[in-house]
């Protein structure tokens, strides 16, 4: 804002070296030899290092540990890190990296997930190129009495996070042999794990501090483990601080992406529109290494039949290996892809039933007491119908929706809707991570600091968690602040992902604050000389009509040496997922969403203009409504970009548009005003009733737009993105 915030590239250390990465030149190679003699002679080059130089374990500690920090003999995608250069300035480091000559033999490669799963394809992972497979089976699909069926195949392309700040880290050797790493990241504890492994060091010698992070959206979940691991390795090997900042191109080429996907879905329904069966086959293209694909796939699997009550469901899902950049976490985590498929098909079913598609959704939407595809009974906090009703009312759906056949002219108006169910937090797929630590301390002057294991990355965690602390402590909000996240301050709190921060860190902070507040309340009673419940309001504590200022009470507490700090803890229990049939309670609570898009399609050019976009979410409680709106608008526009513009092209393993010139994200000129609608169906176990919000605003944006384009033109596009080349030719 004022230019004072320090992002990682703004930080300097004395005697610092700069790093650059040597990368694989082709998608699948056996490295025969490497000639870096010329590069090493370049003045200012301090050293060039390879897999053999890794001080500790060369495996990045993610789900399967199949991804090496640096490729050994084999590199499996174009752009994979092979070597690291440390030099006195960034330009020299980059030049030296470009001068390293890798002699290689090209190996047979596979670039398509469905191809990869075929018997004859070259094998790059295990015997079948399948990283992971899941099945969900509810009821018996064969016994479902469907009167009408729809079935179709859908595909989606990559999405690139396009955070404005590229990846970066600085590693600084400690004088006791340990390492401090500062970086742009979401998950400092993943990084701590990675740095400890790559250095062969114990965790207590490794401190990770999150630097102000310039956008993440999932893109700084797992891959900073690699970037920080590289910086730490170079710092260890050179004995000097090392800064590693990615160029935009290498960030595109080597960092994680939203998975491309393929899905075939079939819905069966009665003539009255009750959906009785759903069959899904869903395949994600994981890229060259498993990274987070197994758990991205799991989230997609659990939600694959949509937010509907369906008695007979079978879902089969696969994540397959290909010789392309590894895909990982991106806002929505496996859900936007399958949401595009199932919400498009719901519209097609409505068409076949000759029914308003919003009506079909209302008939089948999960209600209180209903069950999900995993047979989880939803007993509380279910605002799906409300999101539908409010979104429809906001746009005037009932007056505007007409059948496509009634549209005329070159420029055609269309309106479309989509809904989603979203399990908050990591769920059964990540139960071992479902914990959260915090530390809260009130200082003698009344200011309070909170430390948590989750990170601020622009999504508003700092504001929301400070609000929760202020509210619970009875402290004025201005006096509360959240510290930069530092692994030495709080215990491993899991990752900052899956819209879990408000519930997890929020509850942990609230728990810590409650303990401190009880001690403060004792002092308040003593000071006011009355018994009873202590309330707080506008900087005062009060009992009945007697009150005392916050500052005075805190001073009193310190004078009496009351303990005004506490370490909070929160963990989630009881999420389940059956290994064989996928039945159980995968998440503790769900966020429910409905989006409606109004578009104008120029049928001659295929250009789609989004005229209006309404996005309604049941989030339990908006702790800070303005921040919540910001999440809805920002996620919504990423969804609109995903739907219409963003088209990463990889041709035989080579990325054709690894930059903002070729990969098109929306500018302000391409952006409609996005209208947020917040529904608050309290979640009693969440902090002040809150659930989670970060991811849902993106999930069903693309199908809402695709449905609107269909409504305008009468032509169904089954492949994302809806670039004009497809809209015009469809």
């Amino acid at each position, binding site marked *: 804002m004022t230019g004072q915030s320090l992002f990682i590239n703004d930080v300097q250390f004395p005697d610092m070296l700069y790093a650059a990465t040597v990368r694989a030149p082709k998608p699948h190679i056996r490295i025969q030899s490497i000639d870096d003699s010329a590069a090493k002679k370049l003045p200012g080059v301090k050293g060039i290092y390879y897999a053999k130089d890794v001080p500790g374990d060369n495996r990045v500690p993610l789900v399967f540990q199949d991804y090496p920090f640096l490729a050994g003999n084999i590199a499996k995608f174009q752009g994979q890190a092979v070597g690291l250069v440390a030099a006195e300035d960034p330009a020299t480091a980059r030049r030296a990296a470009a001068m390293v000559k890798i002699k290689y033999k090209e190996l047979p490669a596979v670039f398509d997930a469905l191809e990869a799963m075929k018997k004859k394809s070259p094998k790059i992972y295990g015997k079948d190129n399948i990283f992971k497979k899941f099945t969900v089976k509810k009821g018996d699909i064969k016994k479902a009495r469907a009167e009408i069926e729809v079935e179709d195949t859908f595909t989606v392309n990559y999405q690139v996070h396009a955070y404005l700040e590229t990846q970066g880290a600085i590693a600084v050797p400690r004088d006791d042999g340990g390492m401090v790493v500062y970086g742009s990241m979401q998950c400092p504890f993943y990084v701590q794990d990675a740095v400890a492994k790559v250095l062969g060091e114990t965790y207590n010698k490794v401190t990770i501090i999150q630097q102000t992070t310039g956008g993440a959206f999932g893109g700084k979940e797992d891959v900073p483990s690699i970037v920080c691991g590289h910086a730490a390795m170079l710092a260890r090997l050179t004995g000097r601080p090392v800064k590693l900042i990615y160029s935009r191109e290498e960030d595109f080429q080597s960092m994680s992406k939203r998975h491309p996907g393929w899905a075939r879905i079939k819905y069966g329904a009665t003539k009255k529109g009750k959906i009785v069966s759903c069959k899904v086959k869903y395949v994600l293209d994981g890229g060259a290494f498993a990274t987070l694909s197994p758990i991205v796939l799991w989230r997609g699997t659990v939600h694959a039949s949509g937010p509907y009550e369906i008695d007979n469901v079978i879902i089969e899902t696969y994540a397959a290996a290909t010789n392309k950049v590894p895909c990982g976490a991106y806002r929505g985590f496996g859900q936007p892809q399958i949401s595009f498929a199932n919400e498009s098909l719901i519209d097609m079913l409505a068409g076949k039933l000759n029914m308003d598609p919003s009506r079909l959704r209302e008939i089948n939407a999960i209600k209180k007491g209903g069950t999900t595809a995993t047979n989880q009974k939803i007993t509380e906090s279910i605002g799906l119908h409300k999101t539908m009703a409010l979104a429809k009312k906001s746009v005037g759906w009932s007056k505007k929706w007409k059948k496509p056949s009634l549209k005329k002219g070159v420029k055609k108006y269309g309106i479309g809707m989509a809904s989603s169910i979203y399990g908050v937090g990591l769920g059964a797929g990540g139960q071992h991570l479902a914990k959260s630590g915090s530390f809260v301390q009130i200082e003698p002057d009344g200011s309070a600091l909170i430390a948590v294991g989750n990170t601020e990355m622009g999504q508003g965690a700092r504001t929301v968690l400070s609000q929760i602390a202020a509210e619970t402590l009875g402290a004025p909000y201005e006096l509360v602040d959240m510290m930069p996240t530092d692994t030495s301050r709080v215990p491993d709190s899991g990752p900052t992902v899956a819209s879990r921060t408000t519930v997890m860190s929020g509850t942990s902070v609230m728990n810590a604050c409650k303990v401190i507040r009880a001690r403060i309340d004792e002092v308040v009673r003593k000071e006011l000389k009355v018994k009873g419940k202590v309330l707080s309001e506008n900087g005062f504590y009060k009992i009945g009509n007697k009150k005392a200022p916050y500052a005075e009470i805190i001073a009193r507490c310190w004078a009496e040496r009351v303990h005004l700090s506490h370490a909070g803890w929160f963990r989630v229990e009881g999420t389940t997922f059956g290994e064989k049939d996928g039945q159980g309670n995968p998440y503790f609570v769900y966020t429910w969403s409905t989006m409606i898009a109004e578009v104008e399609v120029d049928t001659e050019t295929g250009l789609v203009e989004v005229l209006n976009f309404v996005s309604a979410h049941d989030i339990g409680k908006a702790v800070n409504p303005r921040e919540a709106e910001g999440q809805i608008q920002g996620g919504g526009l990423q969804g609109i970009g995903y739907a219409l513009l963003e088209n990463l092209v990889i041709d035989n393993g080579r990325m054709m548009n690894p930059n903002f010139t070729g990969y098109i994200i*929306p500018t302000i*000129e391409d952006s409609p005003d996005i209208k947020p609608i917040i529904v608050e169906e309290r979640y009693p176990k969440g902090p002040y009733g809150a659930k989670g919000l970060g991811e849902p605003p993106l999930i069903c944006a693309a199908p809402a737009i695709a449905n609107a384009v269909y409504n305008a033109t009468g032509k169904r596009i089954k492949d994302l993105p809806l670039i004009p080349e497809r809209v015009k*030719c469809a």
Partner: protein
Amino acid sequence: MKKFIRIKSLAELGKLREKCVFLAGGTDIYVALNDGALEDEVLCDISSLKGLDKIELKGKNINIGALATFASIAKSPVIKKYAACLAEAAATVGSPQIRNRATIGGNVANGSPSGDAIPALYALGAVIKTNLRSVPADKFFTGPKKTVLKKNELITGISIPGKNNKSFFSKIGPRKALAISKVSTAVSLVISGGLIREAGIAFGAVGPTVIRAAETEKFLKGKKLNKAVISRAAKTAAGEICPIDDFRSTAKYRRETAAVIIERALRKAL
């Protein structure tokens, strides 16, 4: 980059020994430099050449200095009056930041088939002036990023015959700003007595260079502009271009939308 020099007068051009890459606003050159290209080149900064940023009406001609920026071209009253399609094209180049720096001389010298100013220059019958000679715009480009410019020959300006014309520019890009054209077109018509006396039509991003639709121009000459003529012209024009498939778009889409945007541009002249 090997060396950075700066010239302050055109007279210094003749004294240059080494082959130079000329630098004006830097919006193309610095992108290349940041990419690690141009390592063996000598950069010659021409931004302090005096008087080369002027836009003026001289006699019957509009003279635009090579250093005129797209921002200044887009808002120039003279250009808006006599070369509206160029003003419209200038206003769609890149972003405000780019338009404040990018020069018309640089856009022409870069010679990209998707350079937005170039179709307008073709349609308006512009002449590219260098320190050595004058070359009609449609004879200036020889291939993608290739021009007739010889070693250290510098574009000094553009001259456009001032006519009582109607002219329009239209482009289709992947988004509304910061967009490289998938297809663009510029049209200039001189109409008097209800008949088209002169027609200039060109397309960008649908061939190795910007393409002049000579057949279509010939077809339109002497005709009365009406819906049937326009639709026939659009069809003819679509046959005169040779677009390709690349990661930005497809040949099919480019060909079909070229016909759409030329038809719409011509309709504006009705």
